[in-house]
């Protein structure tokens, strides 16, 4: 990966406590996985920064290389890759995600 892309991604990941790389935006998600991630975070009332990879092809590929993960969306909490919507959904079902948010001091506001 190009160094500048790597740095750009690094900056994006560190730009917020909760960062979601997705296709589209939270208002207009462009894939079902991204829509699911947005829905889950919304349901828990988690504030997050979203990065629309469709707006930047090098980030779209770069984030997959960075995380060693071939899919989108990708959720990062305090710089750590948590997973995609499948991982997120399962962690929510078991309560692991909610527990993780508490452990990492991420405020929630469940609806």
């Amino acid at each position, binding site marked *: 990966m190009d160094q500048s892309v790597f740095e750009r991604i690094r900056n994006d990941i560190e730009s917020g406590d909760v960062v979601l790389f997705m296709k589209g935006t939270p208002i207009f998600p462009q*894939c*079902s*996985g991204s829509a699911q991630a947005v829905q889950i975070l919304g349901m828990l009332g988690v504030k997050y920064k979203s990065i629309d990879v469709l707006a930047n092809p090098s980030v779209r590929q770069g984030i*997959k290389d960075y995380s*060693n*993960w*071939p*899919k989108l969306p990708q959720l990062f909490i305090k710089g750590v*890759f948590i*997973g995609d919507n*499948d*991982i997120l959904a*399962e*962690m929510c079902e078991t309560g692991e995600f909610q527990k993780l948010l508490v452990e990492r001091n991420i405020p929630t506001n469940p609806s």
Partner: protein
Amino acid sequence: MVEADEIKHLIEEVVPNAHVILEDLRGDGNHFEVYVESPAFAGKSRLDQHRMVFSGLQGRVDSTIQTFSLRTAAKG
């Protein structure tokens, strides 16, 4: 697009003793729901379990297939 059988075989090749259930959601070879169960997943994080599955699919999840919804379980 990819055939469901091909996906099943590719997963079985890299995940020992895998029990694979998959559904071609639209019948178009582009949207799959996949469940993989294997004792080989024991002790591995969910992330690593999924990575094991992805490793068998040789980039198809990245480029060819539109939706690939995956669940894994350490069982069997």
